[in-house]
């Protein structure tokens, strides 16, 4: 094992919803596609594979990993890697979803750690998670997500 410098991110959002709804929104493809533009596909059993699939006609697999821990509706731990690096164990990072009741809301904490510092993946996820979590909050609170692929008009 070569020592590698890793980095972590912790994202927190408060959602007026229930832990069950938030857990389903992450694990059920028909809900995830509405705010994420992707589906997370797995049987959600510890040790099983999961795939992050773009919800369009191409259905490109963009992230792969294993399910590490599943405790509905409060906790889900998965590993996370680009499909092109799936054979390299060192390329896997880890995502932990923590879901707690918080008054009449849910406090959702997404911890993405064991990421290689300065890697394209670290950069990508740090741009991605805030958008995805805002969109999830918007979907569960208002019934519609935001366009996660939106770009400035003149760009």
């Amino acid at each position: 094992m070569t020592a590698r410098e890793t980095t972590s991110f912790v994202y927190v959002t408060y959602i007026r919803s229930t832990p069950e709804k938030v857990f389903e929104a992450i694990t059920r493809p028909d809900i995830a596609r509405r705010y994420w533009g992707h589906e997370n596909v797995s049987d959600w059993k510890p040790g099983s594979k999961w795939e992050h699939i773009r919800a369009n006609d191409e259905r490109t697999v963009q992230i792969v990993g294993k399910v590490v821990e599943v405790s509905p509706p409060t906790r889900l731990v998965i590993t996370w890697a680009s499909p092109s690096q799936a054979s390299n164990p060192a390329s896997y990072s880890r995502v932990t979803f923590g879901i707690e009741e918080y008054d009449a809301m849910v406090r959702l904490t997404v911890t993405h750690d064991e990421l290689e510092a300065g890697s394209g993946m670290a950069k990508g996820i740090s741009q991605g998670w805030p958008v995805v979590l805002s969109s999830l909050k918007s979907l569960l609170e208002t019934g519609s997500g935001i366009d996660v692929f939106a770009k400035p008009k003149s760009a």
Partner: protein
Amino acid sequence: MQVFTCILLSHNRVRLMDADKVFKALGDPTRRRLLDLLCEKNGQTLGELCEHLDMARQSATQHIDLLEAANLVSTVKRGREKLHFINPVPLHEVYERWVRKFERQRLSLLHDLKQELEGDDQ
């Protein structure tokens, strides 16, 4: 007593979680500096953050508390250490509500012009 304090704190946090708190938290150079420091290196301790700030630890703590109350900073305990992480989710919500919604195209044109003239995006 400890439990009671925690409950009071949580209620505070909930009330403070609106856009006003985000703008208030951002309306101070020290707090913006703290966010910049966390953007450069996420997951720092109070001690590490204080090395870059010209102020007493206690004042720094007060600034961090305001950032936490606005949900712009989240903390994780690792052993005896408390690590601070930048949480840009509320910033994204403010961006969606107050920037992207209005005059998207014109804003990017102005931004481009400013960049062209100043040669910098600051």
